[in-house]
Structure formats: structure tokens, C-alpha cells
């Protein structure tokens, strides 16, 4: 998706590769497994440092859980990167039979974004300075955030890469580098753990 937008993207599987990128995408998967692999591959410390230093980051689904400051029902040994001041709940919509796709109204986007939620988390609390870009009715009928931004950090509870619509990737490049996203050529990266 990033290649189509004119920026380089590569899989980051170790600390040296992490040092060479200008922005990071933490994709979906199982957050417990990713958390464990960050530890065993020696990437947890370096990634935390780069996030403290202010590297732009986009977390989707499990990536949102990892980037969040707090997980309400996570395992006690799960690692948080603390890149954005939100509290999230895992598997907030139920099990796989409750996973769904829907057209989501996103602030600044018209028409709506087709979003795929797979055993998705939800944002229970967004801190001061966190902007909610999209929200949806949660398990208890209350509207809660599913797309947020804080500075150069963006998180989505759904999988923007699954529906073939590049607009959120574009939005990330814009907030990450504060310029026209479609003309960039700098090397960017994603984790592939």
C-alpha cells in the first residue's frame, strides 16, 4: 500500500533494521504473540526508545493495542509501547463470529471508509490531546473511538490494509511527515512480526 503511495516500505524483524527507518507501522496479528516476539528478538527496548524519541507510528488492531498506554484486560506480562495516550479493551466486539465489515464515517474523509474489524479492540479512554477521527457503537451500546490520532501517532481498531482503500495510509504519511503524502520517497517501514 505504501509503495503505491510512492514511499518505500520494508519488514522490520530486528533492531538494526529498526534503526534505519523514518516511521513505523505496527500491523495486526495477535498482540500477545507480537509482544513476546518483540522481547525474544531484542526489539522491545530499541522500539520503546524510538517511540520515546518521537518516531511517527501507525498501529492497526493488535498494533493499536501495543501502542496504547494502557490495556484494560491484557495479560500482565504483555508489553506496552505507550506511544499514544489511550486505554484499550481487547476483543471488544466478541469472538470471530462477531467480526464484521462496515462503512465507517471518518472525520475528513468522504465517502466513508470501508473498515474490516477482526476480533477488534476498542478505545475505552482517550487522553487529552488525542483526537478521535472515527467512532462506533461498542459492546455496551456506547459510542467509542476506533480511529485516533495524537501528534504523529495514529491508531485504528480495524484493518485499513484489507479493504484496498489507501486513504488512511495517506493520512498517516501526511501527519507523520507533515507534507503532501503522495510525493514522498523516503524509506519507511513496517514491522512484520
Amino acid at each position, binding site marked *: 500500500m505504501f509503495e503505491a503511495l510512492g514511499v518505500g516500505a520494508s519488514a522490520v524483524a530486528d533492531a538494526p533494521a529498526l534503526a534505519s527507518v523514518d516511521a513505523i507501522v505496527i500491523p495486526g496479528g*495477535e498482540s500477545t*504473540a507480537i509482544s513476546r516476539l518483540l522481547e525474544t528478538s531484542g526489539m522491545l527496548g530499541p522500539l520503546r526508545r524510538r517511540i520515546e524519541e518521537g518516531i511517527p507510528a501507525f498501529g492497526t488492531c493488535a498494533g493499536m493495542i501495543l501502542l496504547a498506554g494502557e490495556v484494560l484486560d491484557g495479560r500482565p506480562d504483555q508489553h506496552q509501547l505507550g506511544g499514544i495516550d489511550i486505554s484499550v479493551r481487547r476483543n471488544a466486539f466478541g469472538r470471530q463470529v462477531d467480526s464484521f465489515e462496515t462503512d465507517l*464515517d471518518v472525520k475528513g474523509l468522504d465517502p466513508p471508509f470501508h473498515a474490516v474489524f477482526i476480533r477488534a479492540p476498542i478505545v475505552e479512554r482517550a487522553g487529552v490531546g488525542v483526537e478521535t477521527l472515527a467512532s462506533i457503537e461498542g459492546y455496551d451500546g456506547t459510542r467509542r473511538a476506533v480511529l485516533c490520532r495524537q501528534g504523529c501517532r495514529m491508531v485504528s481498531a480495524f484493518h485499513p490494509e484489507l479493504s484496498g482503500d489507501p486513504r488512511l495510509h495517506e493520512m498517516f504519511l501526511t501527519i507523520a511527515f507533515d507534507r503532501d503524502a503522495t510525493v514522498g520517497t523516503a524509506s519507511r517501514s513496517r514491522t512484520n512480526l
Partner: protein
Amino acid sequence: MTDSEQRRRTGTPLVKRGMADMLKGGVIMDVVTAEQAKVAEDAGAVAVMALERVPADIRRDGGVARMSDPALIEAIKAAVTIPVMAKARIGHIAEAQVLESLGVDYIDESEVLTPADEVHHIDKHAFTVPFVCGSTNLGEALRRISEGAAMIRSKGEAGTGDIKEAVRHIRSITADIKRITVSDSAEIFNWAKILQAPVGLVQEIAETGKLPVPLFCAGGIATPADASLVMQLGAEAVFVGSGIFKSSDPVRFGRAIVEATTHFKDPSIVAKVSRGLGDAMRGQDSAGVETRLSDRGW
């Protein structure tokens, strides 16, 4: 509320395949108790397969192998936060319905259990829960996909700890995919005839060069190097059945196979996790087995 998001659609092909996409690069482990499920989750499994007996024991015990007790599946679901899969017999619609009602995250219509129907597989489009099915070749894979499978795994020869059948199946599937990508439009129709598969799916492979759903590997993975091997051959994730809890040290084997699957391209990491690991499951040569599970399925 008048939001456009009000229409939420569950159980669509995109939602089913998206779930499989999230397991890519990971290890799905067979577990028979809630304690084992926790060990698997701690080891970094991306999902567990809940069943009463691992394939090696099913093979040893003989008799008819059926869906697991719902109480066992519920106990395993309650023990972990990662996805839980369970097996239904080939063609056993009612077992699949029961598993769906239990809220399992994926159903494996599996040759490891004794088939319930010698002609038909389950119509998987009729379900909200996604299905994975085993295949030995591309034709079988495409027939399962046409029935609604959202993930394909090699069958291998489950419960043997012998990797060669899984290698044969993955190689057969990927080799035919490669051949189709260099076929002309007239040859595509012949491929559909040879494979006994819908021509639309063959055309899709010709265009994309890959299966329309994720391809995982199962059946005989017993060591970290086995996992690295099948990932290098084109598998996108691995199922480990008997290989973990029939080894001398399940905790270490589980972690080692997870790391080897993630870093399958890096032999130094596979070497590191293999060092002093202990005994892999004893296993048996798949050529000598009495019951070939991989022959089940049509």
C-alpha cells in the same frame, strides 16, 4: 443514529480471510487441556486448536475420532485470549453447527477425525464462522475454497512427526500455481479440467500467482527446522499438532518453533533455538503408517 456504519456485515469472505491473514507468520498449536492452552499462549502461539487427543494418540488408539466435548472446548476458550479453533469431521454439518454455537474462532474440517461423509464436504458458505481445510494438491485446495474454506493447510501425515508428506503437499500446490501463471488463456480451461476445480478460481491464480486464501502448513512438523523448511517452501504459517506436547520439553519446543517460524529465513536463529532443545516427538516414517489420514477428503 443515521451513520453509514449502521450496516455491519458478519461472516463475509473478507472477514473470514482477514482472520486468517492475522495468523500469518505464526504457529497454531494443538492442545488437549486448558493448562496446555496457557503454555501455548505463553510460548507465543497465534491460536490454539482445542481437541481431546493429539493426532499421534488418535493414530495409536484407533476407533472413530469425533468432535471434542464442548466442555473441553469451553474450558480452553476460557483459559486464553488468543483465537481458539476446533475440529469437525469431514461432511459433519451438525458438529460444525455445534462448534459455531460454542463461539470457536475457526473450524478445521479435518481428515484427522474419521470422515462422516464419503462424498461431500460441508457447505462452508452457510456458516458465519470461517473454516480451514486440508489439501494434498491444488485441485483439492480449490474445491475446498469453492465450498467456502477461508484458509487452506497442507494435510501432511498428521501424528507421524515426519515432514515429508507436508513437503510433498506444499510443493505440489506451489508448483502447480507457478505453472498456471505461465499458462495461456486456452490452457487455463484445461487446468480446470485436470484439477477438477472451478475455472474462475484457476483464472484468479493465473492473475495473482497465489491461492485466493492463505496457505498454511500442517502434518508432521516436529522441530524448529521443520517449521523453517515449510515456511521457505511457501507456507504462510504452521500448525503443530503432536510436535509440541509429545516432545521432551513442550515449553521450550513451543517457544523454539514460534521463533523459528518468525525468523525462518535466518539460520542462525533457527540454530540458536534448536541448541540443546531435547528430544522431538519420536514419530514414525509416514511411509509405514497403517491408516493414511491424508487420503481422507475428496
